[in-house]
Structure formats: structure tokens, C-alpha cells
């Protein structure tokens, strides 16, 4: 560059010295910090009204209650970061639940476990193919899947609970067992969340998922085979949803086509949005989602402890989703003109 006359300018911004408090806030993130504060406030309010909230047994109840919706929230986070959305997760869990129970009756627990996961994978593959090859937006493709997979679950089960797994040691271990004093269910959620967290944060696959969600054209022109990522993420969503379905079977002792899984897609999206996952894709983290799952679990548990009419729970969840997204959009600086992007 010897012949150029460009000189470095003095416009390089100086590094701003921060005080320790704002540094800590930056490290945890505003989003996570507000979730932690919200959880703390909720715990104080509920605990002051009903002291049995603090009982170890109740904490376990909360933990076990959030496992199933938590698993779906974890995988929904990945789908949304990639710029998609998966409304089928609840229905896939239901289909996997009846399938696992029916497979168990005929072929035992191993086949039922693996078989149900495989069915979840196939459901995810179908959604992914509709999106990639049919050019249908994930919202519409999985809305169709939401109703269609539910229909399949009802068809194979004739709409009734199937099988009985309540006497099988594997299913008993899943539902009521514990390792190191912590229930198996919570281990499952923790393990899946940790694996997905590591994938998102430390692997090439995870980083490319963020890139696809942030700008798919840029990702494609940088050599990322984005169709593979879309298919892969939908398959992952199907498998994890099926795992949640197996846990539903374990907890209830039989396969449930609809009850136990209906509406879980909604909770998973609420948790992801509350956790700060950008619904436009490209931004978000596992820690935020997990905190949001805990917040939702405590809220629902507290409402039933305090004897609130259960129908209010739906109203509360709906309000939370709207609040979470409104905050996101305001922080994005969305202009209040026309249909939002």
C-alpha cells in the first residue's frame, strides 16, 4: 500500500471506562437480569401469601411441572433463533406419547423409546421439507402440522389414552426416579438444555444457525448450506418434542394423544420470547429461555397454590407473551406504522 496516501484518522472511539455495576449488568444481560428480578419478586409475593410454596416438595413439583414445557421451549429457542417457528411441538409430543405407549404394549420399553423418537424425527422432517421444498413459511407449514399431527395421534389411538406403562421400571424411573436426590425429569431437561446450549454457543453448527436466522442470504452466500440447517433444526425439534411426549407417557402411565400436550407449543413460544429470543431470528440464548421457563413454572404453580381460577392461567400466559413481544419490538425501535415486521 506504499503509494496510497491514506492516513489513519483519529475517529477511533475511545474505550469507555465502565463502573463495576454496569459491567456486571452487561455480563448477565439486561434481559436475564430482569427475568431474575421478576422471579425474585414472584417468589416473595407468592411465599408471603402461602408459606407452603417454599417447601422442598413444592419446589420439586415446580421442577417436574416445567420439564415437559421446558424441553419444548429449549428446542423452540433453536428454531426461532434460526428464523423459524415450530407450532407442531405440542402435537408431536402427543403423537409420540400415544406411539410410545402402543409400541411399549407390543415391543417393550426400548423399542417404544427409540420408536417414539424416530416418529418425532419424521414429523420434523415433514415440517422441514414443507418449508424448504414447498416454500411455505414456517408459521403456516407448522400450523398445518399442528392440526394434522394431532389428527394422526387421534387416528392411531381412536382418540383415547393407550397402553399402560405404569409398571415398567424404565418408565417409573423416568417419571418418579431420581439421581443424587434430583428427579430424573429435571435431569432430562437440564441435560438437553445443556447440550443445546453447548451446541448453540460453542459449535460451528450453532454459530451457523445464528447466521441463518440473522440473514439467510448472507449465510448462503458465505457457503452455508442453509437448507440442511433448516431440515436439521426441524428434525431436532421433532426429536426433542417426542422426548417430551415420552415423559408425558411416563408421568401419566399411558399414552395421551391430546391431553397433556395440547397448547404446549404456545408455552414454548412464550418462554422463548420472554427469554429474549428475537422472533425475527439471529438473537437469543439458552439461559434466557431457561429463566423464562422457571418464571412461567413459578407463576402457574403460585396461581394454583393461591387458589386462582385456573382459567386465569391462560389469560396470564397470553398477556405475558404479548408483553414479552411488545418489549422486544420497542427495544428494536420498530416504528408504529402499519403491520409490524
Amino acid at each position, binding site marked *: *500500500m506504499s503509494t496510497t496516501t491514506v*492516513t489513519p484518522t483519529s475517529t477511533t472511539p475511545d474505550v469507555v471506562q465502565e463502573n463495576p455495576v454496569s459491567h456486571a449488568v452487561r455480563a448477565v444481560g439486561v434481559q436475564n437480569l430482569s427475568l431474575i428480578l421478576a422471579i425474585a419478586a414472584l417468589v416473595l409475593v407468592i411465599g408471603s401469601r402461602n408459606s407452603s410454596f417454599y417447601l422442598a416438595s413444592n419446589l420439586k413439583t415446580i421442577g417436574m411441572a416445567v420439564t415437559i414445557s421446558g424441553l419444548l421451549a429449549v428446542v423452540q429457542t433453536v428454531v426461532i433463533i434460526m428464523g423459524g417457528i415450530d407450532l407442531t411441538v405440542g402435537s408431536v409430543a402427543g403423537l409420540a406419547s400415544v406411539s410410545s405407549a402402543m409400541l411399549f404394549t407390543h415391543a417393550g420399553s426400548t423399542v417404544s423409546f427409540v420408536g417414539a423418537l424416530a416418529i418425532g424425527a419424521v414429523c420434523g422432517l415433514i415440517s422441514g421439507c414443507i418449508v424448504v421444498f414447498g416454500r411455505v413459511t414456517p408459521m403456516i407449514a407448522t400450523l398445518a402440522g399442528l392440526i394434522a399431527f394431532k389428527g394422526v395421534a387421534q387416528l392411531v389411538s381412536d382418540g383415547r389414552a393407550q397402553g399402560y406403562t405404569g409398571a415398567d421400571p424404565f418408565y417409573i424411573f423416568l417419571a418418579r426416579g431420581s439421581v443424587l436426590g434430583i428427579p430424573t425429569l429435571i435431569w432430562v431437561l437440564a441435560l438437553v438444555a445443556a447440550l443445546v446450549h453447548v451446541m448453540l454457543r460453542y459449535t460451528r453448527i450453532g454459530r451457523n444457525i445464528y447466521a441463518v436466522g440473522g440473514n439467510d442470504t448472507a449465510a448462503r452466500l458465505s457457503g452455508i448450506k442453509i437448507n440442511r440447517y433448516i431440515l436439521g433444526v426441524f428434525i431436532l425439534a421433532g426429536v426433542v418434542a417426542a422426548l417430551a411426549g415420552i415423559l408425558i407417557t411416563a408421568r401419566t402411565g399411558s399414552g395421551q394423544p391430546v391431553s397433556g400436550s395440547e397448547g404446549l407449543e404456545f408455552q414454548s413460544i412464550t418462554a422463548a420470547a420472554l427469554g429474549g429470543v428475537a422472533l425475527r431470528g439471529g438473537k437469543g440464548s439458552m439461559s434466557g429461555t431457561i429463566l423464562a421457563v422457571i418464571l412461567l413454572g413459578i407463576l402457574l404453580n403460585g396461581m394454583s397454590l393461591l387458589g386462582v381460577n385456573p382459567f386465569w392461567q391462560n389469560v396470564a400466559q397470553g398477556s405475558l407473551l404479548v408483553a414479552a413481544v411488545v418489549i422486544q419490538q420497542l427495544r428494536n425501535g420498530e416504528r408504529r406504522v402499519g403491520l409490524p415486521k
Partner: protein
Amino acid sequence: MTEPDEVPRVSLQARGIAKSFAGVRALAGVDLDLPAGKVTALMGENGAGKSTLLKILTGDYQPDAGTIEIGGRVVSFAEPSDSRAAGVRVIAQEPEIVPFVSVAENIYLGALPGAGGAVSQRRLQDQARIDLARFGFDGLLDPRARGIDLSPAQRQMVEIVRALIDEPRVICFDEPTSSLSDTETTVLFRLIARLRDDGCAIGYVSHRLREIFEVADQVTVLRDGQLIGTRTISDTSESEVVRMMVGRDLSAMFERTSHEVGEVALELAGVCTDDVTDISMSVRRGEIVALAGLVGAGRTELALAISGDRPITSGTIKVGGVAQKFRSPADAIAAGIGLAPEERKADALVMVRSVRDNIALAVLGRLSRFGFVNRRAERELAATYISQLRIRTPSMSQLVQNLSGGNQQKVVLARWLAKQTDILVLDEPTRGVDVGAKAEIYAIIDELAGKGVAVLVISSELPEVLGLADRIVVMQDGRVTGELTRAEATEERILTLAIADHLSSEGVLP
């Protein structure tokens, strides 16, 4: 337009305009005069505050301090409709066009003529035809064409007609020529001259110095949110304006170094796609070849085909003498071809991710072991290119969306430097980039060629083409119309090849 003597001559005076966003000062007490019957160019590097100032004039933003006077009366714009009512219009750089309705409907959007809610398509078309002719766009724009089918230049024309039918007295153009070819620019400049002679006060924002000296009567320069000064065009020079803009002396914008040209790296033989026909050309190692032509000549489409993003219907692409069949950009990258696309924000950068992530995007494979990204290697890589390309960012974790246009472009270049591709295709690498960063980007391209990279540059700015290229391939309507060496090339020759057909058939040339 109406008779000049009937029209009130109205000037705009802004005094002490200040505006901050979340504590960041965008404008610090700026004065701006747009006198009636004059074209005032507004110049400054990206981030100097030009856009903010324009948005205050349109009522999109409200200033924190300062006053605006129009024709001697103090006005305040709470929203865009107030500013329009006061006779101020800003012609947007990227106009909003409704895709599936006609040009005529797009022009009268929000004020469709008609009685009792019924719109007569025929009356609408006739009205549009009259208005288009009034502003000299007849023959360039069919009022029945749908919004989606318009070229960027035609979209710009729709926006101009939209603004002018209200007969505003203060008109600001925001980089109107960035999507126009030189011929279309000529038409625009004639229109601006007419508006000026009619007594309108005209503001003109542009990065193109040459244009300013052609169209403007005076130039006002902003830097870092402050007014640097106003000069009468006849009393100033390009170098003075540049000095005012950058606050430093750029005695020469850029000078090519000469280096050795090696064997053929990229060779196209009879390449056809849906948009281009029978393209044959080659780029050698260490050579910079420019693809010149008008907007819409098929250059971007050709770049996408070379980069594996558009299918080739016939013909061959050879890389290093080996014929290639690309099914995806990944294939082209594997063969050693990198593309920096025209639309940086839309097609090249992941705006919500960091500078580091964006630089490493194409080389994560190399930085990974067993699928895990080596974060230290990644940081080192990013740090290397941030300092080598002088990417101005507070840190490598800064989101790319917070960088200026020039620095964003450098991030894209850094990505391909990191990938070390043998062939680089750069589509309008300096569009929307300020003067200082432009020179730096030229130097980077020159240095790459010096290292033996084969560079294909698409550019609509003729001085850029002439300054940068060893050879110039000119395209028109999807075909190559000629090739010039650096020694043969002049602006006139390139333009002649780029518009050869238009000369006879459409007659848009002066």
C-alpha cells in the same frame, strides 16, 4: 409547472438544530440555508448528520433545539404531514413502492383522484401521463406498469413525481443518483435545473463530488454533527470540499500500483443464464477487471451466476483451467470464488451479530475441531483483520449494524480475506461508502491484486472503474458489448459501449 413569476420564492433557514439519540449527539447546533432559486449540496461522510437533518426537515424527527424558518415564518413539524403542508418534500433514496399496483396508483397514493370513492383507472392513467410528461419522464415510465416491475431508476422517478405534484417550494434529494445510470442522471439534473429556475429551494445530498460540481450552486459541509462551512461552487474546488468533509488532506484519492499479472484464474465461455446471454471473459491472477454498464445491464446477475447462486443454462465457467458446475454458493466458494454482493446489509452481513462473527462466517470450518469453534483462534483472526483493514469499531463484539457503511464493507472484505479465495467478485464495493473509507477500500483491492488474487469489480461509477481496473468489460442488456484496456479506456468510450443501443432506439441521450 406554473409561470415562474406567479410562484412565491421561498427559502428555508434552519438555525441551531440539535438532536441526540440515547445520549449520542447526531447534530450539535447546525445551521442550514436553502435559498430559493439555488441548489444547495449537503455533503459529509456517513454519520456526519445529513440523514438526521433531512429527517428533521420532513418531520420524522423533532429537533431537541433550534428553529426552522420557511419564507421568514417559524415552523415546527410534529409529523411528516406538517412538513408537507408547509411545502417541504424530501425525495427518499429508497422510495417505498407498492409492488402490485400501477405506476399511476403509486404516484397518487393517498390522494387518488376520483369522485365518491370511485377511482377511474382511465382518468388515473391519463392524469399520470400528463404529470410524467410535465417532469420530463414521458417515455421512461409507463403509467400502467406495476410497481414490482420497475427498475431502481424508475422507482426513483415515481418518487420524484409523487413529491412534485404537490408543487413543493423546498425540495431535498437524498442521494438520488445512487441507483441511476449516467443517462438517467442527466435527465434528473435537467429537471433539478428547471425546478431551480422556477424558484424552488433545493437541497441535494450526495457522496459524488463530480455531481455536486455539476448540479449545485453552493455546498454545505457537515462533519460529526457540526456545520463545517458553506462555499459557493464557483469559489471552491473538489479538494477543498474533500478537506472540509474528512478534516484531512487527501492529495490523491487513490493511485494504482502496477503488479504482475499471472495465468488465467477465471474464465467464462458463452455463459448464459436467465438474465445474461453469451458472456465470454476472463480474469487473470493479480488482475483487476471492472464490469461496467448501466444499472440493469445484467452485471449483478452475472456476478451471482459466477458465485453459484444463479443457475447457468449454457456455457462454461473455468476456474484455474478446470470446468466447474456450481449448484450452490458453497460449491463456488470451495472452488475459490468469493462474492461481496451489492446489497451489503440485505445480502452480505448478519446485522444482529458481531463484527467477529461476521468476519469468521465463511471460515468457521477451518477454525473448528470436532465441530467446536476455537474461540481464541477466532478472536485472533478477527483482531488481525480489524487492524489490517482499519475497521473502525469500539470492539470486535460490536454488532455490525452499529458500524458505518464503509466499515461494514470492510467487514465483508475481511470475511473473504480470511477465506483466502483466489477469485473475488466485488459488486459495487463502494456504494454508500464515504470518501475516506472509499480510498481505503481501493487500497485494499489493489493490495489483494498485488498478492495474486483475481478481482472482478462491478461499478457504476466511471471514475472508480477508470482508476481501479486493468481491463474493463462493458455490458448492456445482458451481453458484453466491448472490452477496453486501462490505456484505451475513457469515460466516453465506456459510456458509448454501455448505451450503444439506446442511442438510436430510445433517444434518451441529450
